[in-house]
């Protein structure tokens, strides 16, 4: 190749550098591994979603007439386990995190590319085991595997599911470890901690939780497997075991796991709000510290899942108090996002609509979290639809909205293609509407006393359940629309430029899609993040046609 050719031909992107299947399955490129994860978690999302649709169909009537009780119990277990471990926890970290962290910090790749690829294979092995449990008859324990039901009484495929989650846990640890090391050691010259995009801060906080919480889940699942195989175990009350001990170990992981889902979402929203209001994030340092505070405080509050479980009254009081503390950094973030809008120039692109939707739904989800931290109210609404509504506001209204907002924001970078904004905004609004119709009635149902995990309910709860089921069908359609138009954008030649949103951040300085090795030369950073100037951008746009 002559020098002239090299100048004229654009460097091949990471998508076009190699074409063989082998070049995808053995890739060490963080961007391609992100794409492997994207296809996998999208598939898992629709598996979990299908289970949810069937559940809502069953709940349209008070009797268990659509599916029998045993099948319903398997549906909610599949829905919970698949959505938590195979969609929500990996979603933003393994897709957007993998793709963006090296680009955002000016690195050629993550610190351990082989470990990164291995994490995908381990994740898929875990996913195969977990979905295999559906094929061999399903699991009916609920995603929480409470003992002694899961160890001694359940007559279903508990082991493959537990093994699948155990294996997938190692993928989580590998990803978290890789991110921590990468963010510590591979930042470009001049990219100090307080010049990092808030998404990177959020991913760092998330990775700490992944690395420190997941091993406790792993050993807890080992103990369940041992008890099922050996016939004796440490949680068996008949042998002097304490089933509450299982709950402590389980929630030591599973409560922080909620923050694994929501912290990355908060990071995405910080990027979106700053870009589309053309303003630096108000109180950057406070937002960054809030991520760390949430990650650490998140480890101190797990006992609020056990207020009625037989936990001591004193411990409950302490856990209640600590749970209230988490509200403070969460509130700081919401306030700062909203004040960031002030004096900005707000562009209502698809991603911004998702971000605003996130702020609304997360605020309601967070505030209803206070109800659950309040001891006497939790005693009433624990294990009812109030809890279901609360955590779906956080995980679906929050994490999934932010994930989709982020996908739309970085889609031009990932795929090199633009999509139809009209469809984008329409589906985002439809999703917001469908979501609220599905889950708001569940707050009321919860306070009325409708218990969760039940295929049957008293007839007076039917009206609200019908509303919820109707909302779920709207929500289902709203999730399919982006799948269609984003896939269509791949075959339609609306090429994206390097920086279609005029955003700051190193990822926008490389071509779309980025070249295989990200940067031709290591970038040097000299400015703080989000150096948007609202006034100037507004003027610039006024003169441009």
């Amino acid at each position, binding site marked *: 190749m002559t020098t002239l050719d090299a100048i004229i031909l654009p460097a091949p992107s990471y998508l076009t550098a190699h074409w063989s299947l082998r070049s995808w399955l053995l890739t060490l490129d963080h961007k391609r591994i992100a794409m492997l994860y994207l296809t996998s978690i999208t598939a898992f999302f629709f598996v979990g979603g299908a289970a949810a649709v069937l559940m809502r169909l069953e709940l349209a009537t008070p009797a268990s007439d659509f599916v029998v009780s045993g099948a319903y119990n398997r549906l909610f277990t599949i829905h919970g386990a698949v959505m938590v471990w195979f969609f929500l926890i990996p979603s933003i970290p393994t897709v957007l995190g993998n793709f963006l962290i090296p680009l955002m910090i000016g690195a050629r790749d993550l610190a351990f590319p082989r470990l990164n690829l291995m994490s995908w294979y381990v994740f898929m092995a875990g996913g195969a085991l977990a979905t295999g449990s559906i094929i061999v008859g399903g699991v009916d324990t609920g995603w929480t595997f409470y003992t002694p039901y899961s160890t001694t009484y359940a007559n279903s495929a508990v082991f493959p599911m537990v093994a699948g989650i155990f294996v997938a846990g190692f993928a989580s640890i590998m990803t978290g470890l890789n991110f921590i090391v990468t963010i510590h050691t591979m930042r470009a010259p001049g990219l100090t901690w307080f010049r990092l995009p808030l998404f990177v801060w959020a991913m760092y906080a998330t990775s700490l939780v992944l690395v420190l919480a997941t091993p406790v889940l792993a050993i807890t699942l080992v103990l369940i497997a041992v008890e099922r195989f050996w016939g004796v175990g440490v949680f068996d009350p008949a042998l002097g075991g304490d089933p509450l001990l299982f709950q402590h170990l389980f929630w030591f992981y599973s409560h922080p796991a909620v923050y694994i889902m929501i912290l990355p979402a908060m990071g995405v929203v910080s990027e979106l709000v700053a870009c589309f209001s053309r303003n630096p994030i108000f109180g950057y340092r406070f937002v960054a510290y809030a991520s760390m505070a949430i990650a650490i405080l998140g480890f101190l509050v797990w006992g609020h899942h056990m207020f009625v479980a037989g936990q001591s009254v004193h411990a409950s009081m302490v856990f209640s108090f600590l749970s209230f503390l988490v509200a403070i950094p969460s509130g700081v973030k919401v306030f700062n996002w909203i004040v960031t809008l002030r004096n900005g120039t707000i562009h209502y692109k698809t991603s911004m609509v998702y971000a605003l939707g996130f702020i609304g739904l997360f605020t309601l989800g967070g505030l209803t979290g206070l109800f659950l931290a309040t001891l*006497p109210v939790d005693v009433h609404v624990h294990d009812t639809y109030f809890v279901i509504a609360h955590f779906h506001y956080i995980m679906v209204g929050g994490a999934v909205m932010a994930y989709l907002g982020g996908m739309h924001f970085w889609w031009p970078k990932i795929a090199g293609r633009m999509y139809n904004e009209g469809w984008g905004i329409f589906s985002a609004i439809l999703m917001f509407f469908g979501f609220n119709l599905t889950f708001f009635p569940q707050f009321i149902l919860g306070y*009325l006393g409708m218990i969760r995990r039940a295929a049957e309910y008293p007839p007076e709860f039917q009206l609200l359940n019908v509303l919820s089921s109707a909302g779920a069908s709207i929500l289902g359609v709203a999730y399919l629309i982006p799948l269609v138009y984003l896939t269509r954008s791949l075959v339609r030649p609306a090429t994206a430029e390097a920086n279609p949103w005029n955003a700051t951040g190193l990822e926008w300085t490389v071509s779309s899609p980025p070249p295989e090795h990200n940067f031709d030369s290591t970038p040097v950073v000299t400015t703080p993040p989000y150096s948007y100037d609202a006034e100037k951008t507004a003027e610039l746009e006024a003169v441009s046609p």
Partner: protein
Amino acid sequence: MTSRGAVNSGFSLWPETASVGAEQVDLVYLALLGLTLFFVILLGALALGFGVKYRVGRAAHRREVVHKTHLEVVWITAAALITLAVCLWGTYVYVDAVTPPPDARNIYVVGKQWMWKVSHPQGPREINELHVPAGVPVKINLTSQDVIHSFYIPAFRLKRDVLPQTYTSLWFNATRPGEYHLFCAEYCGAEHARMRGRVIVMEPAEFQRWLSDSKDLEPEPIPNAELAEARSDGHAEVFARYACGDCHKSGPTPEGPTLVGLFGQPVRLRDGRTVVADEEYIRQSIMEPNAAVALGQAAPSTMPTYAGQVDDEHLWQLIEFVKSLGADAGGIGPTP
């Protein structure tokens, strides 16, 4: 008996409030609701205001953004104070809710898959029904026979997990006679959704009458008990004494295979073997449930071992009883 109350009542947006404690909980809940409304309106108005005023293309005076640390301090402090206040109030109400008065009337409840068994110290026993007097503190003592259940009365805003090998309790002072829902709130297996009952709150005098009327009343016959009632010879009594019929019913269930028509027939086992259900097989299954688990049952078996609990004479009677069930393989109805 009055029929007023939550059970079978129509659509509503607010649950029945039928105890002193429930009123307290509602107050805290309303305060939280107000707080939520305040923040949603405040934040919504701000977001809407900024969103309209500073939207692209609109000529607004846009000042340079200056970060103000005192603003952060203001909302951190405000959030901390508000949450602390709610937390303290909630804790205060909670301590009251978990401290039963010393003169509370005791009632014992056992949860099992999938029913509530209630015993009044005065004698009466009930299943899936709980009669209590109004205006009197009542303490419910809870334990489970198998997995974790949760005893939940929405109208009293009360819930407590029911643990095996452990006693937990809750107490209430019902205010309004009526019938209220009783749920199991902790997922406990196949028929969790049907582990429902009624709490019947009665005027104290009426309750006293009910107590004395029900003294000799045995619990209503339930499907599980039908095996035990099938025979009236002494063997059936032993069968009932060890509660074998709780799991071994007239048809196969997740908890145990049916014993009807079993005796003398070949049994396929989980490990692939086929054995004949003879006396030795029945004995072994009682003493070592894991030695030969039938196909379709859980392994390890959910049946506890009865080694050391069943003496030889009883064992013999149990085997005789299973034998008699084998005589008519057609069904289990009350046969002569």
